[in-house]
């Protein structure tokens, strides 16, 4: 299977710090690739470089064979329809002065799509329903929503243009555990039902294991290990991966099966 995204030799410095130091990996169509690491490991910078929200000092990113790193403006705009990002704190990425309906409709406006009367509103309502938000939320504003609902709004907006890839940067880190599970299940369903590839960036080893087909472990700007999730968690090869896994608190006695 040919890769949807090919990342090769990606490098980026901030002042004297090399945040990303020669990172290469593929994202296959429809898979979930987890990128796990601690603060300062370079995982968020890698995500931003992938989508060209930051410029790389060296290396390249190809999306469906096309060079994202060197794409001209018009091509980049077209590529961005296919690659969307959601963030840890959806509030900071949602315009507080605009209603949720108009936030979710924004990608249509930017790309001049669905201009017929009522078309856009219908599409937005479908998207909102898709992520579990009722039509009654259409005219509300972000501050009226809980963290979990805001993450749903961000996801509805990301889905608007039917992307082939979503990059999610710590999408559930700010949420309570019961709400986390709602959002994780939603992301899993989207992948299963629509075949969207997901790059999940997280510091949480349990979340990454649960969600991912393959996992990359980042440390000090490099990928130190990349493997199928089952393999990586069952028999980690790298000393740093082992140290990370040993640090995760265990819930002592195992509870009865609950699925």
């Amino acid at each position, binding site marked *: 299977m040919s890769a949807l995204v090919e990342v090769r030799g990606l490098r980026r410095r901030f002042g004297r710090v090399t945040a990303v130091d020669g990172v290469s990996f593929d994202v296959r169509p429809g898979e979930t690739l987890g990128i796990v690491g*601690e*603060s300062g490991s370079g995982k968020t910078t890698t995500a931003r470089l992938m989508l060209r929200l930051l410029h790389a000092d060296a290396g390249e990113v190809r999306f469906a064979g096309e060079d994202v790193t060197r794409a001209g403006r018009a091509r980049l705009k077209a590529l961005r329809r296919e690659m969307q990002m959601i963030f840890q704190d959806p509030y900071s990425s949602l315009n507080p002065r605009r209603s949720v309906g108009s936030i979710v409709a924004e990608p249509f406006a930017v790309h001049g799509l669905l201009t017929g009367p009522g078309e856009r509103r219908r599409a937005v309502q479908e998207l909102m329903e898709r992520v579990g938000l009722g039509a009654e939320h259409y005219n509300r504003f972000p501050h009226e929503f*809980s963290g*979990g609902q805001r993450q749903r709004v961000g996801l509805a907006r990301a889905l608007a243009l039917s992307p082939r890839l979503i990059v999610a940067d710590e999408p559930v880190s700010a949420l*309570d*555990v*019961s*709400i*986390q*599970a*709602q959002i*994780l*299940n939603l992301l899993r369903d989207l992948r299963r039902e629509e075949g969207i590839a997901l790059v999940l960036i997280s*510091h*949480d*080893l*349990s*979340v990454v*294991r*649960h*969600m991912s087909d393959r996992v990359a472990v980042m440390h000090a700007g490099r990928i130190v290990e990349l493997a199928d*999730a*089952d393999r990586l*968690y069952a028999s980690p090869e790298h000393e740093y991966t082992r*140290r*990370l*896994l*040993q*640090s*995760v*608190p*265990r*819930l*002592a*006695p*195992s*509870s*009865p*099966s*609950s*699925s």
Partner: protein
Amino acid sequence: MALLEVEGLRVRFDTEDGPLQAVDGVSLSVEAGRVLGIVGESGSGKSVTALATMGLVPGRIEGRARFEGRDLLALSPEEMRRVRGHEIAIVFQDPLSSLHPFYRVGRQLAEAVRVHQDVSRRAARARAVELLGLVGVPEPAERVDAYPHQLSGGMRQRAMIAMALANDPRLLIADEPTTALDVTVQAQILALLRRLQEERGMAIVIITHDLGVVAELADDVAVMYAGQIVERAPVERLFAAPEHPYTWGLLRSMPRLDVPRERELVPIPGRPPSLVHPPGGCRFHPRCPYVRDPHREVEPALEPVPGDEGHAVACLLDPATRRRLWREPAP
């Protein structure tokens, strides 16, 4: 006798929307030298419970909090200040909220010593170095002159714990002490707290949203929901035989390294209720998959679980039904 005994604690805040009952009838006790974990999601009242006991929240406070026989809630602000930082110390999530950025760590530590003990500056500084060493800061004699920003997050949290230990408290309250830290650093801080607790026989109340942290550190656990304790148990009993449907929901919502990867997460539907207009009856009933009609009206009390020493639950389902439901697959 318990070191700290909280009885019928109620805390109410006035908000624009009306009075908000953040804590509603919480009773708990902490034995000397034991670790109590208070676990709950945001808004459950877990922090407010601890902070109100320490006289650190505004609002209307009712109930009693006996610490070695004295009611903390009846102390004057002056008396309370003497207890705080001396017999009871607190560590917060963000050390920068408690460490002043302009002063060297050692000076702040020495001041914490001198507030409660009549010692010379030189002796206080020596004590500061000793405390930093005790909490595992490498090269304490040099780090004592560092400013907070020159230390990593983990080192700052160690410095905060050192400050909390300055006066040999009998009780340490730790409010999400590892939430802002990386997982490898979290493991070190939890090990440090465990070691200090064992070596000094200090009691700890650890407040956290993370059941993993509770499993690592706590002897006993109280699970809070919507301002009330819904379940209390020795830690191994809570994980082996949880009794409250909310606790089940938390356990089933969590991805875990020790269960098969394919196991589906079962989220708790809906959201925690408003504490300005809490639901009648059992507060969890609007989200509970096992709700029966009477549960919408009758408020459950925290009652002992028959045949399970130290385990208590506030649930209107009868014990045999609960045991059966927990073994069944989630609905």
